[in-house]
């Protein structure tokens, strides 16, 4: 099975405090630690496991600036066979639809049976996979936490819905699936793995390689635009307990006792 996985380089929110810069035009990016979007890492692992079972190859593709190459390389260190970077100044400012259009361009330069995305990325939209599928006229299923290859044309796919229940579907290939965390246990990528792929060539595809209609992408093609970042005025917010750790613990115990939080 030929599988394409879409991966995005994002600030690691578990590692960073995200702050808005002074004029609200961006977040403070200087000291951010970046990594591959958590959901995408599960998607790559799933693709590798499917190929281990039924044969084929895994290609990862990322749309971003040149630094996105590092996440493509990381996922290759994990076991993906090929990597592609889609990058061009003209692509900057694309909205979700623009990103999906660029990924469509990349998909059409190959032949894939299965395309995987993450269920959502750092912007929390969860949109690119569904848009890409519709643009390609392929079937789509979101928040997938179970994939069984039935035969070379059919999958059994579980979608994790509310309450952790799973909605089972039968889907024909080719299709696009967005992957939910927890579907597998992504393998660890060590420094040796990274070294192994340090010198593989990762092609960079821009406007001319993709032959994409410039009107639908970039800032000018975007119907949806982020105006600024801000930190909302909090309502009441929490009462923050101050003092030494011991003092805070004492205050908290008082409060918990009052609220029935200590039996």
């Amino acid at each position: 099975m030929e599988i394409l996985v879409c991966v995005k380089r994002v600030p690691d929110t578990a590692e960073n405090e995200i702050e808005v810069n002074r004029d609200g035009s961006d977040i403070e990016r200087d000291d951010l630690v970046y990594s591959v979007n958590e959901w995408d890492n599960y998607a790559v692992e799933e693709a590798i496991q499917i190929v281990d079972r039924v044969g084929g190859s895994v290609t990862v593709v990322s749309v971003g600036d040149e630094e996105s190459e590092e996440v493509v390389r990381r996922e290759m260190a994990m076991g993906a066979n090929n990597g592609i970077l889609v990058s061009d100044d003209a692509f900057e400012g694309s909205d979700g639809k623009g990103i999906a259009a660029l990924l469509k361009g990349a998909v059409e330069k190959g032949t894939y049976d299965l395309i995987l995305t993450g269920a959502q990325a750092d912007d929390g939209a969860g949109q690119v996979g569904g848009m890409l599928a519709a643009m390609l006229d392929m079937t789509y299923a979101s928040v997938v936490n179970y994939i069984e290859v039935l035969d070379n044309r059919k999958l059994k796919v579980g979608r994790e819905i509310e309450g952790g229940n799973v909605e089972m579907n039968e889907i024909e290939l080719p299709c696009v699936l967005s992957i939910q965390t927890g579907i597998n246990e992504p393998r660890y990528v060590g420094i040796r793995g990274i070294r192994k792929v340090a010198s593989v060539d990762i092609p960079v595809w821009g406007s001319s390689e993709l032959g994409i209609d410039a009107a639908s992408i970039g800032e000018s093609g975007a119907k949806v635009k982020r105006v600024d970042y801000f930190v909302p005025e909090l309502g009441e917010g929490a009462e923050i307990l101050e003092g030494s750790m011991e003092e805070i613990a004492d205050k908290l115990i008082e409060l918990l006792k009052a609220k029935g939080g200590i039996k």
Partner: protein
Amino acid sequence: MAGQVFAYIIHREGIADDSALELITAARKIFPAAPLTAVVTGSGGNLDAVCNEMAASYNEVWKFDHEALAYPNAEVIRKLLVNTLPGDAVVLLPHNTFGMDLAPGLSIKMDSAFVADVVDIEGLEGDTLNVIRQEYSGQVSTHVTCDISAGVVLNIRAGVFQADESKAAGGQVVDKSGETGDLSAVRKFLEIVEAEVGDVDITKEDILVSIGRGIEDEDNIEIADELAEAIGGVVSCSRPIVDAKWLEKSRQVGTSGKTVKPKVYLALGISGSFQHLGGLKGNPFIVAVNKNPKAPIFQVADVGVVEDLLEFVPVLTEKIQTG
């Protein structure tokens, strides 16, 4: 100028989801006075009950009764909406696993704009809709503009808009079952597999000690176990803890886990994503321990402790134990 406003109604066993009335409030923030249409799909059974209920709140209810609509398969519903809605429609959906499944592709097929997970709406200026979203798991908000001249699909976050309970629309049900068009689909719904039942039932507990990614390591779960034992509570968790297989799925709080209604909820190393908070009901007393003072959990917590939980929680536990 964008067109008519539609809300897709999710319903189960004859009862509309909470989102049905929240979408009205959201729509009113865009169009204060425009007529609103509810789209209700299904196959026989309780469909009429839902339609009649919705007619109290929506000016018009479009009823689609068809075998192929017995289960809300997003691919089928997308076809139905593309076949029946005007091209420049404004379509509202909840941003849950159904809305996430349907909306992005729908916007492409309708050739309209799409905004996901809208948390507030500031209004319409000409053809530009101004909304608010969040990024980075709620750590920052953004103002977003959207050109809705050719229509738009909006996914609205659950619980952020008050339900419109006025029930004063006096609307009518229009049976459109004959107009569905082709509803054939490649994706076939098979069955729902219910979540596994675990060893403890966190939905019945009054005191929950809930851990998130901030617990950092499986071995550290002991720290939460000891606190839970000291205060007579039970350990629950956020999704990453279950993904890592450190605790059973039945301990997960959130939209894709359990809905809990404790009296006291201690959130240790949990950032407070909306999917996590979506499982926390009944207005408990929330204590958050998080080393990041900007973590969104502090916006909803009653009391906050800005400390490393791995250091603070053992101190707290010991004090409780020694009384």
